[in-house]
């Protein structure tokens, strides 16, 4: 994981792809306005402080001239030197310097808050946005790419906001001030200095171009080597079993050498930039010294020795910020690429929800109608709000689900489910059976609106599910997914995820129902055992039991069970089975089944093939038909 090693003092590092950013100006403005939104005042203070710091440094340099011309030379000539004037001048400079130091502390300290605060805002906004995105987003974006927004991209932004931007501002101010001072001292020498700067920039451009080219190549090679390492490490046991070590090493050495060459070149050009520019700076210094010396000796235009001393100091102060700017530009470009990816995430369209029907706790009244209740009653009702006449009606929630000629595709071009017809009466158990990719899981994802259908209607207790608020719709459905995901936290917290206000007793009750109580008690800290890394210390079967308990504590009226496919041993499987059976009692249940025992007592079995329901009926009916179900079930090909 990148992150911990990106220390506060590490120089700019090419991470990610240093690709060109489209419309960098616009992006930069957007980034600035994002920072300004929360830290407008702080930013103004920072800029003022940077100006003060830069000016105080420039005035110090200018003081050199005054020191020599106005104090030292007159003093050396006087019989009885009086140092009080000098002391006074130094004291004045000291005060300016102190202001500069104070301002420097002020802005670096404020920048800590601005930088970290902005990064925090970015992180929070990204997370908030991420949670609101539709499932489709996660299907179409690699999880690694999403993560790198939080790690790499945030890190490059940190570099840019905390270091590059202040340095750029300060450099520009210094350059302007120094240029003005130099021009005041001597125009001719200034021209010489500028000429050398032009040479410096030219060389920087050439070297930066070369280094950039190799950095890209290095980045590409790092990617290739890392991918190879990851693949081979994952398959290391297979390598051993097939005695494939030699081949594996040969391939690696070849890739490793390529990486070495590009890395060598990239760093070489980056490394030599600094000394070249520094020495050009020195040459510029020498040339000015010689010219200045000639000028001062001949006294052209009243150019004094003190002025030469000052000018030479300015010459040095002029070259330094230019060097810095050229170095910071690289990290700005990289940060902008990161910002572009972050903004792209922030600009994603969230899941839309036009539903207005809500799910509420209800009590049954003597006349057979239902009324809203504050408490959890075990009975639910749909609360319709009629806009037209501003009235509210209630309808008891039963758990009746109907698919009416439903077509669905992940995109409009490719329909994966065709004309699905399905009726589930309250309390019924509907099973889906079929090969991988037949569309079983997809159907269940439509009921809770993880995806929206292209054509047809899905009705829940007669209500079109598009009219039900998504949150309420999903609350009414309990789901046990095929791949169990657990969160970092205790076992108790993980089960409680189903119902946040569940008491410990309720949680334990649910665990008992799911058959999970037994193994949980045997864990080192029982219900308080910490789970980390998606519950990696639990077996597949145990994780499933926890997922069932989580659904049990939520106590939803309708259940969707996606049976886990990975092999668990027969005994645990039995426990899982019992847990599921108990959970299903009295609820409308959709189950994606892989095991016979789950399917046999279903009220209706749907056999899916390539997005079509090809057979439906009870177990006995389907066996009699001797179709696909019979074939799957017996492992025999009918009539063969």
């Amino acid at each position, binding site marked *: 994981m990148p992150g911990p090693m990106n220390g506060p003092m590490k120089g700019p590092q090419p991470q990610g792809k240093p690709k060109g950013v489209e419309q960098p100006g616009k992006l930069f403005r957007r980034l600035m306005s994002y920072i300004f939104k929360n830290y407008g005042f702080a930013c103004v203070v920072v800029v003022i402080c940077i100006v003060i710091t830069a000016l105080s440094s420039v005035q110090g340099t200018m003081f050199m001239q005054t020191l020599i011309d106005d104090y030292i030379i007159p003093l050396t000539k006087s019989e009885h030197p009086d140092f009080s004037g000098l002391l006074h001048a130094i004291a004045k400079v000291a005060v300016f310097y102190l202001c500069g130091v104070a301002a420097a502390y002020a802005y670096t300290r404020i920048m800590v808050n601005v930088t970290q605060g902005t990064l925090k805002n970015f992180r929070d906004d990204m997370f908030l946005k991420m949670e609101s995105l539709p499932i489709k987003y996660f299907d179409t974006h690699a999880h690694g790419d999403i993560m790198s927004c939080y790690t790499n991209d945030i890190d490059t932004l940190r570099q840019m906001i905390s270091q590059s931007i202040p340095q750029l501002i300060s450099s520009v101010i210094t350059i302007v001030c120094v240029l003005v001072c130099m021009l005041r001292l001597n125009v001719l020498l200034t021209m010489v200095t500028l000429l050398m700067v032009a040479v410096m920039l030219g060389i920087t451009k050439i070297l930066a171009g070369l280094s950039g080219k190799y950095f890209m190549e290095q980045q590409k090679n790092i990617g290739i080597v890392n991918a190879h390492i990851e693949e081979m490490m994952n398959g290391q046991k297979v390598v051993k079993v097939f005695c494939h070590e030699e081949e594996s090493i040969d391939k690696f050495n070849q890739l490793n050498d390529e990486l070495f060459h590009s*890395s060598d070149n990239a760093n070489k050009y980056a490394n030599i930039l600094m000394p070249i520019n520094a020495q050009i700076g020195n040459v510029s210094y020498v040339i000015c010294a010689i010219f200045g010396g000639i000028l001062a000796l001949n006294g052209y235009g009243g150019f004094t020795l003190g002025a030469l001393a000052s000018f030479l100091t300015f010459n040095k102060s002029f070259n330094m910020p230019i060097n810095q700017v050229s170095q910071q530009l690289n990290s700005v470009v990289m940060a902008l690429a990161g910002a572009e990816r972050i903004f792209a995430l922030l600009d994603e369209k969230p899941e839309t929800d036009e539903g207005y029907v809500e799910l509420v706790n209800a009590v049954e009244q003597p006349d057979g109608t239902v009324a809203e209740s504050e408490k959890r009653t075990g009975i639910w009702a749909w609360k319709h709000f009629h806009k037209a006449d501003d009235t509210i009606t209630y309808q008891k929630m039963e758990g009746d689900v109907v698919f009416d000629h439903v077509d669905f595709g992940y995109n409009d071009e490719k329909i994966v489910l065709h004309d699905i017809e399905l009726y589930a009466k309250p309390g019924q158990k509907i099973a889906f059976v079929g090969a991988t990719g037949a569309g079983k899981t997809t159907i269940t994802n439509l009921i809770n609106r993880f995806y929206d259908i292209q054509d047809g209607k899905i009705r829940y207790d007669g209500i079109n599910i598009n009219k039900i608020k998504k949150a309420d719709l999903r609350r009414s459905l309990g789901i046990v997914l095929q791949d169990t995901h657990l969160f970092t936290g205790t076992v108790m917290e993980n089960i409680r995820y189903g119902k*946040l206000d569940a008491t410990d007793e309720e949680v334990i009750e649910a665990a008992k129902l799911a058959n999970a109580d037994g193994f949980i008690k045997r864990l080192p800290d029982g219900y308080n055992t910490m789970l980390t890394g998606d519950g990696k210390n639990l077996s597949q079967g145990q994780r499933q039991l926890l997922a069932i308990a989580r659904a049990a504590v939520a106590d939803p009226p309708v259940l969707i069970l996606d049976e886990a496919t*990975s092999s668990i041993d027969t005994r645990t499987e039995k426990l899982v089975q019992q847990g599921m059976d108990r959970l299903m009692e009295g609820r409308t249940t959709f189950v994606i089944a892989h095991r016979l025992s789950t399917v046999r007592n279903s009220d209706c079995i749907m056999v899916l093939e390539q997005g079509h329901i090809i057979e439906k009926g009870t177990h006995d009916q389907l066996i009699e038909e001797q179709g696909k179900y019979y074939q799957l079930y017996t492992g025999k090909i009918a009539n063969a």
Partner: protein
Amino acid sequence: MLKTLGSQIKEFKKDSVLTPIFMILEVVMETIIPFLMASIIDDGVEKGDIHHIYVVGGCMVVMAVLGLVFGVLGGKYGARASAGFARNLRKAMYENIQTFSFSNIDKFSTAGLVTRLTTDVTNIQNAYQMILRMCVRAPFSLICAMTMAFLINAKLASIYLIAVIFLGGCLAFIIHHATRYFNQVFEKYDDLNASVQENVSAIRVVKAYVREDYEKKKFKKASENVYRMFVKAESLLAWNTPLMQFTVYACILGISWLGAKMIVVSSLTTGELMSLLTYCMNILMSLMMLSMVFVMITMSMASARRISEVLNEEADIKNPMNPIMEVKDGSVVFENVNFSYKKDAKSYVLKDINLNIKSGETIGILGGTGSAKSSLVNLITRLYDVSTGKVLVGGVDVRDYDLEVLRNEVSVVLQNNVLFSGSILDNLRWGDKDASEEECRHACELACADEFIEKMPDKYNTHIEQGGTNVSGGQKQRLCIARALLKKPKILILDDSTSAVDTATDAKIRKAFAEEIPNTTKFIIAQRVSSLQSADRIIVMDDGCISGFGTHEELLDGNKIYREVYESQTAGSGDFDEKGGM
């Protein structure tokens, strides 16, 4: 630890030595230049000697050019040394990992090895370059500048000495506390990112339970916490710049005041004053640089430790001195075998195993999770070594065979199997480099993989994505079986390798085995009784012990565990479809 790492510099020793030498030469040039500068002003300008200015100016240009050459060479060798060092580290680690046994790999975990080979090496490369270029340069530059300052005027130079001690002390204090804070922050920061990762992969759970708001609240709290800790740590570092400026300014003013007085009494020249002021920057910048290098080194120490762990790890399974190069037949004998994964473990994973299996037999193995089925078969190929007792293959202790010979004759299809990126043929040829396309096709027919390969767009040349993501679980398993068959082994072990294959195909594969490779000893681990029923004999494992060993009928009659499992899987099979493809 550093010695281990250092031994990997190898052919880049020359570059590693040259880099600091050139850096030092560059520093010498840099130090002489202000000295010459003083001479220009004092002896040239003040005395009106234009010739002197030319001579000294010329010298300075020569110095600058030399400085440039040294600087460029230093940069070049530095880049080469560090990039080369990184290459050697990766190479050495990778090669050592190839010698690792299964238990070595288990110890580090796959993810751990990947991090060490990638991120950690990059950290070391950056740190090494920094050390080569700065570690010598900065202190040397500091000493040079200091010496020159003392040569010019010892009294004034002592101001620098005080400044260095003051600034050095402050920086040391800041860094000491900051690194401690930062270590804490980065831990929390990692936690935060881990929780994002968790949310990304579990997004369906979050949405299904409508827990978006709950997660948002949880995240905001954690992110607020990280923010506060970062601010605390970085506020400390915010003192760096102003402290540095304060010291520089104090020096400039002090030198100006005292220097002016000295010039007046003629114990100092104007030129010398200017040089002293130049050295001021050199000295304090070097100090600042040194503190940065120090931070960098501290931060890369953790990486260095992790890398040397891999380099120092010794494979615990090695070839014997005079290995036996031929496996006679496919018979397998376990003699009083006890086994545990850790050397000092108190209880064994496999307890008192005695088995005698004839060449060509088909053996089924059944048992619950954790009953040590895989451990049992892993001993046959010597993926792990027994703790006590012996495992004999073809009548010889497995520890006496050449490892490659043994593993070529005993072919395992692992439970967590992997395909590699490349064409299907490339993958199959892992089993036999020189296999013809015809042989590959035959192996695929036996494993019932031919039927789906033929339906693929490029048939046997179809590209398999990394990790085999473009084939389903059942297809992957069948390809892995075909790959193992190509070795034409004397013993074939299938560790739960048809769990995702549908019942009919499973039966077909078993039938093909029985007909086509009757002389190969076959071990089949499975959860489904139907997959084992036809085996010659079946081993029932329970908690590391053999609970029963016999034919299907015998076990059904006399083994309670076997009967229970059989009964729970009545009629046909327990499974419907090709599983695990999602």
